[in-house]
């Protein structure tokens, strides 16, 4: 049963990575690792910034 839960969790984690749902987590890791002086953006601000940057740098989707 535990293996099943672990497997499902692993899959969910993988899937969220593919979707890009873990972007904020990665941002925090980067922020911590690079030793920025200021505090990191809060989650709400990060996602706003995330989509606003997509506005400024559109990426194609394939056919």
């Amino acid at each position: 049963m535990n293996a099943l839960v672990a497997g499902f969790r692993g899959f969910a984690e993988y899937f969220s990575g593919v979707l890009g749902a873990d972007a904020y987590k990665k941002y925090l890791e980067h922020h911590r690792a690079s030793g920025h002086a200021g505090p990191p953006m809060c989650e709400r601000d990060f996602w706003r910034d995330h989509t606003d940057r997509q506005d400024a740098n559109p990426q194609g989707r394939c056919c």
Partner: protein
Amino acid sequence: MGTMPDGRPNTAPLDDGITPVPGLPATAVDDAVREAEERKWTPAKIALWAAIALLGGVAWFMLAIIRGETVNAIWFVFASVCTYLIGYRFYSKVIERYIAKPNDRRATPAEYKADGKDYVRTDRNVLFGHHFAAIAGAGPLVGPVIAAQMGYLPGTIWIIIGVVLAGAVQDYLVLFFSMRRGGRSLGQMAREELGVIGGTAALIATLLIMVIIVAILALVVVNALGESPWGVFSVGMTIPIALFMGVYLRYLRPGKVMEVSLIGFVLLMAAIIGGGAVAGTEWGAAFFHLDKVTIAWGLIIYGFIAAILPVWLLLAPRDYLSTFMKIGVIVMLALAIIVVRPEITVPAFSEFASRDNGPVFSGAVFPFLFVTIACGALSGFHALISSGTTPKLIEKERQTRLIGYGGMLMESFVAIMALVAAISIDRGIYFAMNAPLALTGGTVETAAQWVNSLGLSGVNITPDVLAQTAKDVGEESIVSRSGGAPTLAVGLAHIMQQFIGGTAMMAFWYHFAIMFEALFILTAVDAGTRVARFMLQDSIGNFVPKFKDHSWRPGAWLATAVMVAAWGAVLLMGVTDPLGGINTLFPLFGIANQLLAAIALSVVLAIVAKRGTFKYLWIVALPLAFAAVVTITASFYKIFSPVPAVGYFANNAAFSKALADGKTSFGTAKTQAAMEAVVRNTMIQGWLSVIFVVLSIIVIITALIATAKAFRNVKAGIANVEYEDPAQPSRVFAPAGLFPTAAERELEAEWKKLPADQRLEHSAGH
């Protein structure tokens, strides 16, 4: 980069100019250890690869040589997967060793430009899925269906061999070289490597190609939704669903992407089921029954609004939904084909394989089969993705082979499954669905009569079968639903109902398939318009600087309007074309896509030559030559062929003459207005073909000149100009392939022992 004229494996000593960061374990497996590992053939390894080769050989034998009544679909799976494995294990390794020459001691842009936003080291397996979701869309689902007119074998061979030798090579190398250049775009690389003329030609060609591709993808959606109240309702509902998701993510629960995607998915399923109920009511059937011209206008207006709305409101949430569906659908389809294993009755080569007047698309096997199937075998559009987001996320240089080459093999597999789904339905139904209205007459009786008159072996269809199939999938009619999407949907429904749900579920599966294809296409249309708008703004900005400011509203709106008008015009042309838009325009889609591939491969050729790799240049030259020959020949047919069904100008002349003779109907055009439309359309299509081919020839010639110059420089001992970012030492380690090797595991263990504060955390879970 030093040259290795004798072409021996890269024994480049540690003089790569990289001083490793002190105090860290090695950031790459030692070259000698890796070599030894790769070259060591244990009996188990030999047995495994012999088994793969044998199984693949048997599968190809069953598909290509044995001529039974039927062939089982499972052989398509074995033939493709075994060939992919061999191509990946052996051919891509050759490319890696002699052309790419990755160096894991070197930091990737995700490391030296890391910002936690655009440049983020991403676990290779996650990035594989991410890259795959970005490259695969409706293309590989549509092309193979249309190409099935020729029988299954020509398409199967081209998809599988083409991807190994051409498509995956392009994706891999563009990804690798873009990564070496800090994630620069294809356009920027073209300008650097090919100079101003080649670079400008590449930019204009890319822009035009984008317009054509968006227009024809939109045409596929319009053809799938025309006169289909159920489809119009459920696909239309994706817009409010995406808006809701956008607001949810922005204001209610920011960052809960997984959660909102699940909610969106449930709503999407409800929209499909609800669509059936709505279409079943009298008012629903009347309100959502739209003709193709209305839908095309709706799509054009939608395209404009979607491209100027902020990303968070519509594009981003639908992108999540689209990715969510993509992975799910493809896994489901693969499972269903393996479980159901349908028997295929379509012949290896159909009666149309040796003719150039097929009803689905016109033209002979060479070159038109090779442009009809672009995505899945060789897709130039991928070069834009491989030089876009993905290179900024790569963790280690060696991983580009898994992601670039491997990701494209995966798309090819999707194309094979689409082909299997399309050929698992009755051939009579296939032709009744895919031939233009002018041939089938539009009713089940006339369509059945026309199909039976084709004299196809083993095809004898009754009007009842056509009517019953339409009823099963919940449509008013399935006659002349060209574009590939409806055929794939019928095929998928046919396979899935044997897997889950039985005949009662067929209508659901059909609309499920239409829904996801529309979802992929709408995302591509929307994103394509935005990218094209930025390219146009930058180009105009060279003359009117104000346009370079992307946040300047009037400029953005004007550029968006121009791009939407451009693809909208081509779309309307296709929708109103009396010859059936897909029949005339789909080849243009493939030509455009593969000309882009030729451009990308030209850039790669010049880069590889500048690095001094001449002995193995053929690895790039081969797909480039093939793409160039196919697309230029196809363009020449389209421009110069005297056969009206093939040549745009021949068709134009025929209709002009008929008009001049005062005829009021000619061929498939029943009115004078329709005849005038044909004259106008063929003229535009003809000139588009001319412009494409001229631009591409310019790019290819400039690439050949750059290659020759590089060759002379190397001979004369003059260093070629390098545009790579300067090498910086890496500070992380991660395995290259799907499964870590023994040496990689050892090294990983060493890294694990490092105190946490000295180690850059892995960005994604393993």
